[in-house]
């Protein structure tokens, strides 16, 4: 039992903070049942993150070493850090064009995917129509179809349209798996918006396009962001189709990396530098959407 608090405070009065504090030291702690074990639980994610970062760190150090240093004595960090490898990439057009190509087709793909997915997701979330459920499943199967199955006919299809080695070809081909995903994510977010909002807007005299752009899209802005992020992500990391559909003019950076095998053996330093450079755009994009990541992975539905 603690000592009884000071008497004589007014009925609605308010005891001075220090009058009661001595009898209840450190009482203002929320109890979460944090046992000793629970306090150590941060170790699991920490170890996991170290595991994730080690290989990336290794690539990073390699990119700052010369080939002699890489193949010579084994060191945990570069003894003579050099930016020479990066200089090679930024001065050679066939290297940095790979970057520009990747960014162009990824951006194109993101824009196309999200803009066609928006009306479709709206239709799926608001209406029932002939064959809707089967259509939805069919879209999803494309997300699941192995790209290796399609590689060759893809090449021929796009050649017969004269699209080989263009950015738009890769952008459209990536729609195969990005559009279904975007529809899926957006449908989840849209279903969270009450239908009454649509009806109120129509009563207020909004036309459908104006309602969609002015009222509805701001409401699901985070959903659009999440969908765009996923489209960016899957278009950026995909290589098989991108490589099949390009030769030189639209060749992605990831495909350019195979060039480092030369007569004199592997150019490890440049390869590592190119690898690090392909990680950076992804890292930047994650940083921008960090507050939506958890929500996005729930696909707006949980």
């Amino acid at each position: 039992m603690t000592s009884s608090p000071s008497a004589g405070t007014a009925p609605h009065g308010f005891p001075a903070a220090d009058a009661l504090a001595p009898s209840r030291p450190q009482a203002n702690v929320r109890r979460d049942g944090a046992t000793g074990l629970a306090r150590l639980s941060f170790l699991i994610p920490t170890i996991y993150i170290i595991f994730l970062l080690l290989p990336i760190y290794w690539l990073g150090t390699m990119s700052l070493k010369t080939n002699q240093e890489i193949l010579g004595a084994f060191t945990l960090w570069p003894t003579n850090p050099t930016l020479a490898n990066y200089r090679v990439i930024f001065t050679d057009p066939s290297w940095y064009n790979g970057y520009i190509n990747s960014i162009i087709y990824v951006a194109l793909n993101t824009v196309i995917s999200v803009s066609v997915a928006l009306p479709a997701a709206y239709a799926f979330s608001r209406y029932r129509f002939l064959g809707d459920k089967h259509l939805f499943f069919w879209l999803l199967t494309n997300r699941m179809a192995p790209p290796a199955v399609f590689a060759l006919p893809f090449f021929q299809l796009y050649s017969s349209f004269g699209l080989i080695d263009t950015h738009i070809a890769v952008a459209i081909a990536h729609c195969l798996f990005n559009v279904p995903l975007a529809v899926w994510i957006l449908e989840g977010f849209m279903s969270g918006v009450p239908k009454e909002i649509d009806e109120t807007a129509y009563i207020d005299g909004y036309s459908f396009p104006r309602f969609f752009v002015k009222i509805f899209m701001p409401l699901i802005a985070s959903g659009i962001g999440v969908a765009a992020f996923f489209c960016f992500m899957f278009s950026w990391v995909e290589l098989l189709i991108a490589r099949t559909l390009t030769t030189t003019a639209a060749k992605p950076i990831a495909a350019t990396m195979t060039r480092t095998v030369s007569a004199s053996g592997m150019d490890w330093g440049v390869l590592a530098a190119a690898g690090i450079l392909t990680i950076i755009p992804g890292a930047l994009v994650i940083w921008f959407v960090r507050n939506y990541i958890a929500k996005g992975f729930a696909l707006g539905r949980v």
Partner: protein
Amino acid sequence: MTLSWMAWTWPTAIFFITIFGLLIGMGVWEYAVPGGSPRVGILRFETTRGDRLFVSLLGSAFICLFWLGLVGPSLWWALALCLGYALCVFRWV
């Protein structure tokens, strides 16, 4: 633009025409009798006509594959089996 690389043959053309015909047929059926007559069959969850068609087609594909792998190249009996299977699916699933 040439599409000769698609290498159409009559059997595959007939195959795809049949599939599209089935899809259109289902569409017309759905238009005439909307709702897809959902019911809970032996798989213990709700299926509609479209689901049953999908299960029949996918199942038939596997029946043909097994037939080719285990029995032999003549698929006529396999097709008959598929038809029987599809009827069962439409009846009980």
